[in-house]
């Protein structure tokens, strides 16, 4: 196995404790921080696929993201001068008003952080206008709304209305996530750009939006 394979494997096998020494060892072999980062991210991509196809479970998705965060603590300071060290994009994320569920949001935040995004977590039970206020304040690219219940999901529409009333609708992509979300219905009725019930799928969509944005 090559050093690159070890890096990928550290994430895929959730080597939470050992990942720091694996990264240090990789640096000693002469791999650049950017190459190390890319391989760690490849590992995270594999984990996302494994979750998506049912081979991995939620706690594994979480542990892989936490393992990645441990690695990033070493890698990120070294990347500052190097191309590729910049953030992949900024996501404002929160659970919508009336919804107090924290768990899915935390996992998605961990995954996005691990994938190189800057996450601004605005908490739970967040009034719709605050999503827009915060997105404007931190110059976000994407707004992520978490809503687990059929009764709270419709409030995502209020975020869309708030964006529209301030003339900001085209500035932000908005994604709704929650275990009970019916994607087709949510996009149609609430006007969000995407809706998912699978966190790894949400991360994939957010990444593709950022790639599109960078191409524009």
């Amino acid at each position, binding site marked *: 196995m090559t050093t690159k394979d070890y890096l990928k494997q550290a994430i895929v096998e959730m080597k*939470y404790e050992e990942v720091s020494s694996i990264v240090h060892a990789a640096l000693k072999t002469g791999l650049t921080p950017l190459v190390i980062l890319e391989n760690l991210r490849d590992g995270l991509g594999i984990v996302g696929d494994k979750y998506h196809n049912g081979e991995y479970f939620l706690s594994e998705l979480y542990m892989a993201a936490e393992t990645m965060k441990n690695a990033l603590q070493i890698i990120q300071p070294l990347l500052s001068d190097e191309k590729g060290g910049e953030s992949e994009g900024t996501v404002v994320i929160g659970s919508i008003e009336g919804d107090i569920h924290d768990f899915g949001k935390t996992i998605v935040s961990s995954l996005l952080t691990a994938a190189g995004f800057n996450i601004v977590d605005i908490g739970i039970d967040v*009034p719709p206008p605050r999503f827009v206020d915060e997105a404007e304040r931190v110059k976000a690219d994407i707004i992520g709304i978490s809503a687990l219940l059929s009764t709270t999901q419709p409030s995502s529409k209020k975020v869309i209305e708030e964006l529209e009333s301030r003339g900001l609708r085209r500035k932000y992509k908005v994604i709704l996530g929650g*275990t*009970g979300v019916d994607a087709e219905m949510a996009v149609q009725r609430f006007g969000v750009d995407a809706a998912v019930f699978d966190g790894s799928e949400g991360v994939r969509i957010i990444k593709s939006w950022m790639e599109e944005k960078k191409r524009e």
Partner: protein
Amino acid sequence: MNPKERLLTTLDHREPDRIPLTANLSLDTRMKLQDHYGIKTWKELYEKLGVESDRAGTGIGPPRDWKPKADLLEFCREAGYSPAGEYTSFEEWGVKRKLGSKVPGATLRQFFFTYHPWEHFTEVSQVEQVELPDLEAPGRFDQAKRTVEEFRDKRLIFGGLYHCQWTRAWELRGMMTFMKDLHTNVSMAEAIVDRLNDYYFDVADRLLDLGAEGLSFNEDWGNNKSMFIPPNMWRRIFKPRYKRLFDRAKRRGGFVQFHSDGNITPIVGDLVEIGADILNPVQPECMDQLEVKRKYGEKITIDTGISVQKTLPHGTVDDVKKEVLHAIEHLAPGGGFIYGTSHMAMYDVPVENVVALYDTCRKYGKYPIEIPHH
């Protein structure tokens, strides 16, 4: 056939006179239905719908001299819980929570956790030595005694162990911390689960001694996609410990009722193997109910209902009828089947959909099942 006989017949995998019906309705939905029918009480509403209270549950209660503080009473009023019930026992365990904001259209509010008292523990010995709510406290089982006296013969009485393993563990430790324990600090995770297991082992015996005819577990193991932890980890850590608790009821010929939201397909066979008799809710949005019936239908009773995430809030009356008829046609024959709402029907549910649900159940839920071509 009275409700208890009807339930016992279906649990015995024989066909009763009709399908036992249940309803989990939010306060707002209940009020809307009462207005719709022009009736005043919850009891009358259930009679109208054809829903019977066939089970009574009792967990442990607070000590006799316990007085709820003003803020707890306010919390209970806003969240819709009894001050002496399972959801307020957090008080004694040291878990802290806060109410969420009011949502237009909903009378009650949700709550969320703000403090997990075991989260800072770093040593197994801390788990082993921490004080738990005293089971010897005078009055602890008063509620259970009253329930047994009131409902003996009328309902099947379940001793509630409710959140006893997984849910209580993460309530005390914090969800993310406990998940991390399960992957990286197994001795800590096991110490937590064992401490709770010993405690609830004792609770189980005391409730059964008082006259409970079974044990009831409320543990959410999945989301719509899959389980929170890998099934093999569940089998290694939780299955033997659940078995130890299930056995308390089984050795006396009692029943085991297990509730878990979400897709728990991988462990249904394990639950059957260690003695679960009733599985709820076998969530229709994410589990193949027909497959559960086909594989385990002779051993486990499927206690389910219509989708409360999709059909009931968002579907038409026709969608409701179609889903109910499909469930009755395929799941009811041979017994081992209870039907109603698969979870709480929230305030966003149209009244006509709930009416259609129970009208269809009453009309087509009589044995022998005969469903018109649909």
